[in-house]
């Protein structure tokens, strides 16, 4: 079997390296006085920190830290950041006269100078979001400098907004993908249930209940996480229906160590894998096939594998599918992979082992405990 590791260790290593870049270089004393490069790097670092502090907005918990940074950049006596909501943070000693000036700027949306104050509006997408006030008693801070800083702050605020809206969009996309139930499967399941209604009413009733369980679980809107045990219950319901549909063609083996049943995992990360194994591994060919689902604890991780002995696929295709560039109607694998990575980090992507006519094995690894991941 050829292996196409999706969440390869190399990805993780690259990410780690990218994160560790904030080191400042040490300069020997005889070079410090020249002060060229070190100064500019320091300013850059300060600017980056200000931008990072502002990602949660002017009313965020780190706005004061941003104000302190700005005060350092401008060498001003005091710097204030006012948000539209009325909240205000100051670095340095605030003077009461500033309040009126801020009112003015909010109303006129243009710069106001009233020594010792300079007040500059903060605009994101031509929309007023707050006011930057700088106090300079000796008048050393120039208006263009304040203007430049105000633009920088506005830029940082805009970036923060974009980031949070991108997060929301990503979450919405993941939730939307989660609720995908194959119409093909619904049709088959209902048909097979109908076929049992007269001949074997008890079985039909059981299957109906399984169908109810399956749909409720797949369409549930509560929470982001569930337990491995619940995920397996949903898989069982699904498999019961599929066995009714496929009859002798489908054989199933589930082995789960009880240690991993309580592990919290994102909703519907295992069930799509089982669906894939049957839809793309077993269904396309006439011979019977075996689907095996194994779950066990390995160290501090829970390892679950879904394996079929079906048609398999070209490893290249697996790579394409995992990267989300395949058929837009078949996003199951890529979806699960992305959700796992976004929750647990790049190391915990899916692992797919496959080859033509050699079956497919998909391996999910999750840590047994991850802060913030709690079943609901």
């Amino acid at each position, binding site marked *: 079997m050829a292996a196409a590791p999706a969440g390869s260790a190399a990805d993780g290593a690259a990410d780690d390296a990218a994160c560790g870049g904030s080191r400042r270089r040490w300069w020997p004393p005889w070079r410090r006085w020249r002060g060229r490069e070190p100064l500019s790097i320091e300013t850059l670092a300060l600017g980056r920190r200000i931008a990072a502090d502002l990602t949660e907005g002017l009313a965020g918990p780190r706005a004061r830290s941003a104000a302190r940074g700005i005060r350092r950049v401008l060498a001003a006596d005091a710097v204030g950041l006012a948000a539209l909501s009325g909240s205000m943070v100051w670095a340095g000693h605030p003077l009461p006269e500033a309040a009126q000036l801020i009112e003015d700027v909010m109303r006129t949306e243009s710069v106001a100078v009233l020594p010792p104050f300079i007040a500059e509006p903060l605009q994101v997408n031509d929309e007023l979001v707050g006011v930057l006030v700088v106090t300079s008693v000796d008048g050393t801070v120039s208006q263009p400098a304040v203007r430049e800083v105000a633009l920088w702050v506005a830029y940082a605020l805009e970036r923060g907004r974009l980031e949070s809206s991108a997060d929301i969009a990503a979450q919405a996309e993941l939730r939307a993908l989660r609720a995908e139930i194959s119409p093909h499967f619904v049709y088959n399941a209902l048909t097979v249930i109908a076929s049992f209604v007269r001949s074997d009413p008890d079985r039909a009733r059981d299957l109906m209940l399984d169908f109810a369980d399956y749909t409720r679980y797949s369409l549930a809107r509560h929470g982001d996480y*569930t337990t491995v045990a619940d995920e397996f219950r949903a898989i069982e319901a699904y498999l019961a229906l599929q066995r009714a549909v496929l009859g002798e063609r489908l054989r199933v083996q589930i082995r789960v160590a009880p240690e991993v049943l309580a592990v919290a995992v994102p909703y519907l990360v295992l069930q799509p894998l089982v669906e894939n194994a049957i839809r793309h591994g077993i269904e396309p060919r006439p011979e019977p096939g075996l689907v095996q689902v194994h779950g066990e604890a390995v160290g501090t991780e829970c390892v679950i594998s879904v394996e079929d002995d079906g048609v398999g696929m070209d490893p290249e295709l697996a790579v394409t599918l995992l990267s989300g560039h395949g058929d837009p109607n078949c996003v199951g694998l890529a979806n699960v992979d992305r959700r796992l990575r976004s929750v647990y980090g790049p190391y915990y992507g899916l692992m797919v082992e496959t080859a033509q006519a050699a079956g497919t094995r998909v391996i999910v690894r999750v840590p047994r405990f991850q802060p913030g991941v709690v079943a609901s």
Partner: protein
Amino acid sequence: MQANLYALVAVAVVALITAVIGGFGIRFARTTSDVLVAARTVNPRWNAAAISGEYLSAASFLGIAGLVLKEGADALWYPVGFTAGFLALLLFVAAPLRRSGAYSLPDFAELRLGSAEVRRVATGLVVVIGWFYLVPQLQAAGLTLSVLTGWANWIGACLIALIVITNVVFGGMRSITFMQAFQYWLKLTALAVPVFVLLLTQASQYTNARATAGAGAPPAFTENTTVRVDTDVVLQVTEPTQLTAVGGVDGAVDVDGTVYWGVGEHEVSEGTALTFPAKSAVPVVTGAPAHNDDWLRPLYGGAGDHPLFETYSLMLATFLGTMALPHVLVRFYTNSDGRAARISTLFVLGLLGVFYVFPTVSGLLARLYVPQLLVTGRTDAAVLLLPGAVLDSWPARLLGGLVVAGAFAAFLSTSSGLMVGVAGVLSTDVLHGRAKDFRLAALLAGLVPMAMAVTIPPIDIARAVGLAFAVAASSFCPLLVLGIWWRNLTDAGAVAGLIIGGGVSVAAVFGTLLGLAPGGWVGSVLGHPAAITVPLTFLTMVVVSKVTPKRVPSDVARVLARLHAPERLGLTPGPNPNRTGTVRRPADQDAVNRAGRHRR
């Protein structure tokens, strides 16, 4: 060497059954093609047996009987404490910890306090406690093998360490619930059957024995007995005794012949063989009670100078230490919810209560039948030697083999549980690792205690394990209790408490293990630090937390609600609360139908 054969066969059988259950079998596997297997959570009773199986270590299996033989009534606090610890666990920790979803103690620390610092300190302490706990297990394995084969102690210690490391590294012996549950029943059988057989076959002698046990006389040899002394000892002789000695006695280097010992203390050097005639009084190593009536009386048995303090300290350590043992807490994760965690703890109390009857009785029987262990001081071998000393021919060998099998089950289950636990925290927190580092971590987790077991001179197993309990009680117990029940705990308080309480107790334990402790109060405190360090840790955590009120985590209300709210409210993890919700089914009929279907 006939007895060895039985014992070695027994060891092989234990290893084989363990491998079979662990490797192929019952990973909750009901594996036929047309059964849809329910991924059911473990029954709390099974889990209770698994917890007990992992918990009952060499200290319980060998150590307690040895201490009872040597110290008598005072040693009873060990089994009492080892069991009662689960009561504290049940009352304060079991359900909230399970609801937290934390897998290990560092996980809990991070979850409750949101601090990487606390997590780091907690990780360090988990490793230290795990190692302290592993060392006596390995030393006990060395002792057992040396009793069995005459090899040096370090060979057995290294052998068991390597077996367990190999298993953990190559993925066998994962902490599999059913295997651990099996180990409990094996250990219980291996201790209970010999005790019952001995009691039944020797019943006629008990009136006699009861009379001598209560009298103010020292224990006596039942027959002519030769004792080999492995380390230098000082013996206290309470009745004048005539014996044959070969080796170094009382300063004389080459003694070979009859020696007359008067009342008082006598030194015996390493490698000496002493032969005592039948019915003569047994000399006892200094510190242990020499007379049977002292042996039966509380507060006379301990080796220290302040028995009352030491007893209270031991009680604190064992009552509060159990809740903080890494390998015990990991097991609770297997419970399906907080309620199941409580129920299984309740069962654990019962299972341990039953188990600890037998080492205690074994210790009593050992006082009658293998008193020669008192001469060498290595009383931990009592359980192993008892069947051979009382019975003859094949029953002795059979029971001997059974006991050895039980002892190996004890080493294997506890050591592998501990090693998996230590390797787990090492690989996640220290090596920044993922699965591939787990093997490296397992190697590290095993080799360090192996080195410690070989270099540190052994002390009584139960006592050494008691020291690990003391460290656990002085570090994690306050963290868990305050973390669960006191909302004002801060990360600064937790770190300060862990470092001060953990540090002081670890220093004390090292002092004791390396034999640096002097006599008097200092020695008592170092040997039994819990009575000082547990309150110290609580105090540190509370005071530092009070000083740093701003550092109370902002999500404390949410976290505590999750820890304490019962699952049926639907606020916390547990069996999906919705399953009992929207779909209404006729409950009884439906349960019957579905159960039938799944079994088909």
